[in-house]
């Protein structure tokens, strides 16, 4: 798994404290170490313990912040908008239906260019009624202007939240950031996590000091005046430009974090045993861990396969995927979501678009899997890799396979 092994020789700070904590606690620590001064959240499964941990930090005097107990997710993010406009560093988190209720202030946070950091503890959307894992919630709001980073394990949650503030508040970016981690698989499962020392994080992350948008009587400005179309188009262009610039900044911040703390994550995407591979899998989130084990096992069988763990969904690393996948014989995408109108997963559709100019267009296969808390198992990956091998050898393979509810080999009627 990424991040959990640290090369002590390679870093400049001393090792942090080792803890065995669940993903929500890792997120709470990531937030606490980033010194937010205003928090607001409304509990929803599977994010609820995150709110409890943050409240405990504040109540115990370990985190000098105001925790605003609001009546809804809409209010949670609205409170943070006001706090951010007043110059505060802020944090919140939500899941699924809570994110849906938050949508109105959600899109306004990015278009107001407020560098708020929010965990999305990803969960299936209802109906049918479900409280379990899936990434449909975060994926559905991918085009609301936020930066979205998906992570693999609890260490990466903590580290990515610290990095998120540095990305969000960078003067070339000024955009909110979601750190998306899988509900239950990470949020409720304990893992070894190294908690960096506060003074080391303080050296990495400077206090937030905005000037681009701020409510300050000494330098008055009107915020969000009625804006005609020609001026609005300029703001949209600048927002898109900030997303484009974020690709560079995400890589730079990851490189700096890796140098200081000894845990680089690859920036926009992680390449795992990819460079000499002819087959490639693309994953998003915690299932990347299982996928790496399956890739290792396939390698031991002599299958030359590698993996891309996609970290940034927004901005989407179009050029980087093109460069990384150039020359591959077959590419498989694992989607813990569906794109209803494409009849595929969302990541598949976007990878297809990114690779449209690849010469000798390789077969691309989509694997929809793990919806609503259904596990994505080692066996599923073996099946996916087998289908990829068949596609690479020229056999016709269906564009989309729903792992877990498809017919097994030999079972077909």
């Amino acid at each position, binding site marked *: 798994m990424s991040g959990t092994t640290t090369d002590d020789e390679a870093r400049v700070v001393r090792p942090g404290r080792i803890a065995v904590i669940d993903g929500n606690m890792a997120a709470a620590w990531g937030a606490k170490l980033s010194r937010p001064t205003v928090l607001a959240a409304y509990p929803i499964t599977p994010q609820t313990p995150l709110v409890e941990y943050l409240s405990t930090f504040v109540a115990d005097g370990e985190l000098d912040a105001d925790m605003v107990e609001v009546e809804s997710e809409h209010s949670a993010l609205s409170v943070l908008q006001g706090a951010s406009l007043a110059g505060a560093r802020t944090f919140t988190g939500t899941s699924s239906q809570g994110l849906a209720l938050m949508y109105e202030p959600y899109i306004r946070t990015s*278009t*107001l260019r407020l560098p708020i950091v929010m965990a999305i503890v990803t969960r299936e959307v209802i109906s049918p009624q479900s409280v379990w894992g899936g990434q449909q919630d975060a994926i559905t709001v991918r085009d609301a202007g936020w930066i979205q980073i998906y992570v693999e394990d609890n260490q990466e949650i903590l580290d990515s939240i610290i990095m998120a503030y540095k990305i969000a508040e960078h003067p070339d970016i000024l955009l909110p950031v979601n750190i998306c981690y899988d509900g239950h698989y990470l949020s409720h499962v304990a893992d070894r996590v190294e908690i960096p020392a506060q003074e080391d994080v303080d050296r990495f992350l400077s206090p937030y000091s905005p000037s*681009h948008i701020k409510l300050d009587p000494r330098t*008055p400005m*009107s915020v969000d005046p009625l804006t005609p179309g020609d*001026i609005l188009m*300029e*703001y949209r262009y600048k927002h898109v*430009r900030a997303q484009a610039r974020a690709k560079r900044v995400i890589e730079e911040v990851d490189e700096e974090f890796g140098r200081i703390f000894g845990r680089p994550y690859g920036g926009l995407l992680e390449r795992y045993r990819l460079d000499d591979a002819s087959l490639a899998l693309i994953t998003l989130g915690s299932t990347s861990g299982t996928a790496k084990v399956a890739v290792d096992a396939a390698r031991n069988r002599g299958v030359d396969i590698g993996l891309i763990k996609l970290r940034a969904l927004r901005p989407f690393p179009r050029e980087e995927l093109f460069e990384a996948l150039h020359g591959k014989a077959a590419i498989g995408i694992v989607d813990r979501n569906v794109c209803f109108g494409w009849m595929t997963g969302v990541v598949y559709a976007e990878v297809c678009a990114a690779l449209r100019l690849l010469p000798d267009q390789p077969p691309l296969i989509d694997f929809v899997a793990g919806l609503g808390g259904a596990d994505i198992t080692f066996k599923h990956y073996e099946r996916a890799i087998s289908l990829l091998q068949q596609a690479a050898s020229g056999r016709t393979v269906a564009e989309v396979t729903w792992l877990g509810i498809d017919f097994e080999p030999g079972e077909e009627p």
Partner: protein
Amino acid sequence: MSNMRRMKLTGSYEAPIGTTMYVVNTGDWRYQRPVTIAGKCRKCGLCSLYCPTGSRYEEANAFATDLRYCKGCGICANECGAAAIAMVEEIRT
């Protein structure tokens, strides 16, 4: 951005803010204009009280309209008890 034609940007702000007074030129909205019939105007001033943009003002023999801000809504003509205001279609070339 390498995939786009260069933009001709005029604003200096990154986020949607304003730091100076920005006056909307409501006169640009007008498709009809009020014309005062001088002989009928009794100079009661009711039109200037109702005008939402403060565009009606007093002259020697009648009330007139500041066409920089008159948006042509016709409230003055509607309220005028003397029927001294006609709304005339605005034709611009």
